[in-house]
């Protein structure tokens, strides 16, 4: 064994506190060290050349670099070793900068510690094994979880590059939240007018498959080779036979509140959620359908000219393989039940912003009239309350939901457009209108549409003689205010879907205390996750408006396409490995593996002359966390690159 030690000055970063020359001299005295030197910047081109030449000249077969943190330059020096003809995994680093020269001032102490750190690296490298890169094939298909605007945009981008995309949507139609909106700020385009063409593009693309009314059940595997289990819920309508003629829902006798219209309108038991639904195929709501509840009616089946109605349809479980996954699972509204003082569930005329969107929509349940749900009369005085849930650590969320300022301003504008005599009052904490033309929009609403903005919180809403009395503070004038309102609109915040943690666990991606998915780096890897091959877009990560959602959707698509265009993926070979002779087959490792990367394998035990089961690591799936090695009582499973021998050697060297 011939080890070379290369001590970096890092300019004065190391050399100022650590006597690098002395460190190099001491290292040279260590057994198995054949060569030792220092250089001003080991990571620079001349520095790397110096390493290469030393390897050649002294026939070095292992390398220790004493410099900065491996988090910074491990890759650099592995490549350098490879170029020098040394297996990249026979290189170890001693971190004498972040863990030594930068945290100590005493030159003698720091120098002594640097020498010990090198000794540690020498001990480890002496037990390193040459390892070969792993290569894994890539399934050329992208799964998109969620069919809102984020998922739709991702699918369009991926299809445009001629790669197949699959949209998984749990509702009967794609479109998501955006499909419910009336107009969009700040340009006031009608949401349907800009969304519907995209939905049609997706439905007509030969590269896009849609699983609507479907849920994700499980994810196995890893980047390049995910196996996803999907439950296609029984729609009770054959999607291949149905032409979307509408005969069935026109004749259905049942009327229940429409979820799409936030309960403001009614739908039938066999229904499409909204007229522009994609696919334009109805679904039977079995909870309310007379056939399913009372074995009566059956009109839809009788009337359907295409025999598409199938009451016996069962949920179907399918498995599909994907190379990458884009998570576009979106958000839901904050449940303001905790604000008892806002009369949750008590007053019909206190609604949320999404209710308002449906009312403002000319094809919505009120035909575009802003009314009081309690008596159907047109609303004149409307109070909007911002930050319901948002920015309230005591009762709600610590964060700002980002869009409520803008959509409330839009609502105030729409109110006036729908009813010239109406008056909007907006209670706010701060107005956050940081977007292109956003501030101008809010100003316009205040100046041209006469919306009264009151800076302060509402303390209570109560009903008195048919009106809602809104009491609040105007902190700018210091006055208490009471407004007699016809309608109160609560700008409820955006929160993660209730089942977000479950999805995160399936995908092995972390989520924060608000159950929002966490990106790999908040600045430099905003759409990646720490699980390679899984990308984020839209409001499942943090509240986002439509422009931001679409931008992250395209960004995530590019990341996924970056994988699609490769023939195979190179992976670090730092994975677990089983020693068949030592393994007892107790499978403690299988239970403890968070990635299902270990399975049972039958081997012929020569000693016992019998077949028996032992553990086997799926190299492509193993993430190299090493948890299995610590639960294995017989140490039959070990981790390459951080092996038991390497670590024990380090301990002995201390």
């Amino acid at each position: 064994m011939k080890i070379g030690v290369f001590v970096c000055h890092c300019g004065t970063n190391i050399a100022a506190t650590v006597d690098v020359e002395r460190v190099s001299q001491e290292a040279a005295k260590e057994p198995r060290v054949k060569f030792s030197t220092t250089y001003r910047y080991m990571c620079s081109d001349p520095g790397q050349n110096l390493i290469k030449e030393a390897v050649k000249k002294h026939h070095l077969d292992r390398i220790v670099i004493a410099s900065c943190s491996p988090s910074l330059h491990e890759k650099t020096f592995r490549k350098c070793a490879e170029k020098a003809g040394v297996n990249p995994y026979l290189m170890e680093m001693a971190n004498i900068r972040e863990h030594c020269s930068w945290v100590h001032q005493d030159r003698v102490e720091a120098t002594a510690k640097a020498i010990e750190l090198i000794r540690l690296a020498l001990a480890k490298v002496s037990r390193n094994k040459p390892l070969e890169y792993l290569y894994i094939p890539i399934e050329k298909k992208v799964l998109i979880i969620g069919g809102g605007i984020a998922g739709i945009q991702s699918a369009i981008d991926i299809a445009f590059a001629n790669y197949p995309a699959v949209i998984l949507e749990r509702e009967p139609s794609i479109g998501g939240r955006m499909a419910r909106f009336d107009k969009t700020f700040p340009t006031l385009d009608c949401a349907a007018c800009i969304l519907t063409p995209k939905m049609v593009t997706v439905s007509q693309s030969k590269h896009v498959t849609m699983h609507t009314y479907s849920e994700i059940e499980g994810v196995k595997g890893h980047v390049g080779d995910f196996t996803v289990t999907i439950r296609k819920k029984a729609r009770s309508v054959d999607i291949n036979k149905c032409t979307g003629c509408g005969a069935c829902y026109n004749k259905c006798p049942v009327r229940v509140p429409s979820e799409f219209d936030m309960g403001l309108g009614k739908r039938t038991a066999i229904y499409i959620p909204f007229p522009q639904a994609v696919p334009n195929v109805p679904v039977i709501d079995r909870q309310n359908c007379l056939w399913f509840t009372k074995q009566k009616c059956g009109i839809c089946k009788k009337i359907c000219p295409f025999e598409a109605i199938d009451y016996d349809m069962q949920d179907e479980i399918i498995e599909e393989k994907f190379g990458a996954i884009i998570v576009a699972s979106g958000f839901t509204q904050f449940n303001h039940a905790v604000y008892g003082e806002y009369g949750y569930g008590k007053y019909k005329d206190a609604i949320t912003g999404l209710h308002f969107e449906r009312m403002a929509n000319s094809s919505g349940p009120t035909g575009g009239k802003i009314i009081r749900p309690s008596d159907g009369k047109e609303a004149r005085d409307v109070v909007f309350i911002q930050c319901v849930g948002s920015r309230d650590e005591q009762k709600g969320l610590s964060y700002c939901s980002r869009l409520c300022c803008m959509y409330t301003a839009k609502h105030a504008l729409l109110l006036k457009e729908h009813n010239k005599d109406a008056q909007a009052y907006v209670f706010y904490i701060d107005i956050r209108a940081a977007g292109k033309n956003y501030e101008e929009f809010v100003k316009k609403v205040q100046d041209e549409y006469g919306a009264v903005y009151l800076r302060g919180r509402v303390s209570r809403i109560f009903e008195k003689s048919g009106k809602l009395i809104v009491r609040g503070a105007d902190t700018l004038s210091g006055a208490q205010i009471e407004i007699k309102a016809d309608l109160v609109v609560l700008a409820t915040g955006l929160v993660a879907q209730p089942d977000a943690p479950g999805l995160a666990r399936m995908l092995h991606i972390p989520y924060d205390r608000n159950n929002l998915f966490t990106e790999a780096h908040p600045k430099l890897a905003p759409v990646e996750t720490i699980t390679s091959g899984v990308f984020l877009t839209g409001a499942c990560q943090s509240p986002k408006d439509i422009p931001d959602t679409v931008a992250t959707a395209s960004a995530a698509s590019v990341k996924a396409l970056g994988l699609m265009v490769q023939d195979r993926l190179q992976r670090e070979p730092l994975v677990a490995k089983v020693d068949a002779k030592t393994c007892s087959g107790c499978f403690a490792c299988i239970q403890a593996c968070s990635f299902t990367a270990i399975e049972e394998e039958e081997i012929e035990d020569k000693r016992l002359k019998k077949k028996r089961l032992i553990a086997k690591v799926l190299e492509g799936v193993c993430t190299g966390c090493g948890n299995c090695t610590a639960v294995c009582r017989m140490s039959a499973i070990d981790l390459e690159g951080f092996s038991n021998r390497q670590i024990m050697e380090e301990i002995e060297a201390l």
Partner: protein
Amino acid sequence: MTATEGSPERKRGKDKKDWEPRIVGFLCKWCSYAGADLAGTSRLQYPPNIRIVRVPCSGRVNPLFVLKCLVNGIDGVLVSGCHIGDCHYSEGNFYARRRFVILKRLLEYLGIDPRRFQMSWISASEGDKWARVVKELVEEIKQAGPNTEFRKGI
């Protein structure tokens, strides 16, 4: 190698007054090791008594590593990982937490000073916490005194 002047190694051999504790930290490379890196980048000063063994995850740390350190005369052992919920491998630290609470209690039962084996959660952004934990650890181990228990023969 000749012992360097002022090195903890030299001090270890001498009388108790000059003794400096030797501490080993098993740090997961995603959070705690990065936190220690950040302490460096932020130039936070702490005593030079700790040596770091870099591991992928606190879940990688075998209780036998800890035992080996202790019977080899290391004065203190620290296992440090990501905060709960932050694990790069999502669950590794959960396993470590369970495993080491048993070991810690057992060691104490057998008469090993509980200060000699400790755990911490330090994130990649907690350079200050790393420096603080090392300082506290060094102080506590100094109070516990040198680990000479295993030097005695039968």
